[in-house]
């Protein structure tokens, strides 16, 4: 989920950059030197997971999975997402430099939010785990869409209908991210519970 270059106004771009830098600094502070490799390689996994291609009927979409990254990393997800987005722009030119800050906020803020909202429910029972994962996946995309909409709306009030259209097209993706995140979290809890952090 990206906003392309050249769309947003100066105020929105700088607000995004400032929030992203602050968030990244906070995230980096929470990573100590023993965890930094873990965060880095999970960022690689997040990057690769975003290449996974899923069918929805005749169309296809790429996974986003910022919800899972948020659940696994909390605040550390911010620098991890910044890393992944920067590498994406270097390799594929999705987005460039000026919108990077805003894009980090769009992807990372929901990730951190979801961490605090849903992590406490993981591992209580297998059903609860799945649904906590489901809503973590769904909400992270929903929040991302809302942030994207706000960014456009703050740039120019005329973007209102455009924002609405984007949010509506993302509804199927929210559901699919929910399903995938639900199964994925159940999988992790069964196979490798150490990867799930202690309750916040």
């Amino acid at each position: 989920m990206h906003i392309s270059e050249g769309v947003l106004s100066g105020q929105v771009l700088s607000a995004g950059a400032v929030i992203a830098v602050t968030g990244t600094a906070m995230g980096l502070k929470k990573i100590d030197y023993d965890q930094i490799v873990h965060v880095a390689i999970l960022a690689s996994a997040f990057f690769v997971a975003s290449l996974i291609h899923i069918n929805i009927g005749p169309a296809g979409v790429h996974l986003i999975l910022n919800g899972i990254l948020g659940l696994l990393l909390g605040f550390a997800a911010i620098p991890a997402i910044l890393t992944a987005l920067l590498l994406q722009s270097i390799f594929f030119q999705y987005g460039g430099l000026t919108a990077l800050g805003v894009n980090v906020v769009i992807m990372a803020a929901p990730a951190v939010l979801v961490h605090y909202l849903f992590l406490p429910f993981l591992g209580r029972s297998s059903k609860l785990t799945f649904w906590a994962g489901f809503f973590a996946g769904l909400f992270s995309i929903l929040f991302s869409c809302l942030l994207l909409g706000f960014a456009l709306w703050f740039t120019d009030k005329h973007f209102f209908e455009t924002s609405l259209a984007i949010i509506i097209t993302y509804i199927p993706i929210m559901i699919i991210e929910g399903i995938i995140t639900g199964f994925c979290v159940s999988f992790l809890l069964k196979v490798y519970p150490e990867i799930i952090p202690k309750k916040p």
Partner: protein
Amino acid sequence: MIEEKFAFGNSFIHRLDPKARIIAVIILSFAAALCDNLNIAILYFIVSIVFIGLAKLNVKDVFKRIKPVFWFLLMLWILLPITFEGEIIYKFYWLEISTEGIIMCCKITIKSITILLFFTSLVATMNIASLGNGLHKLYVSDKMIFLLLMSYRYIAVIEDEYKRLLRAAKFRGFKPKTNVHSYKTFAYLAGMLFVRASLRAQRVHQAMLCRGFNKKFYTLDVYESDRSNFIFLIGVFITLATLVVLELYQGLFFGN
């Protein structure tokens, strides 16, 4: 997948110090992003083309690289003129196309391509090691640089792992469809990627400890600063100043 196609060239730009290039790309991109006049935006676009020329990049490859943006722009051209409110210039039943929408589309198209070209000519022409080096000289936090380099290093490894996992699934008759079994399988594949990433991180961390890692990251310096970097940055500043002045006093030059 990750082929740094432009990183290994031999041009004026390739020889520049990464630090100078990073400074240049930041100020040029933001200046272009903030520009609000279509005519000036076109001038920025011309400057970006000059940079592509200076870096001696293959035009076809550059075009291929920025192709994803065209899909986005296409969507924009379909969506914006009909949803953007403003003065209606064309009406087709309930479809109303606004002038503001069209102008907006033009601006966004030019600006986004320009910024991507700046990025391609100045940043995509370094390999990641040099990028890390440049960021280091610009006092970016060591942790952040390390995160970037390390993450880059293992993307190819993890991507290979993913490809092989998907392959194995396909060999066992898996056909991706729109159903729960498919989504569950992809969830398992993604989950496995995270598990393996985490296990690998443990081993890599251990390997670093074994090599005497003591919470300090070193960057090898390979670029020496010479005069060309300075001249380059001066050139960038002059161009930029000219464009900004032009935009401020646009009325005098373009008469609107």
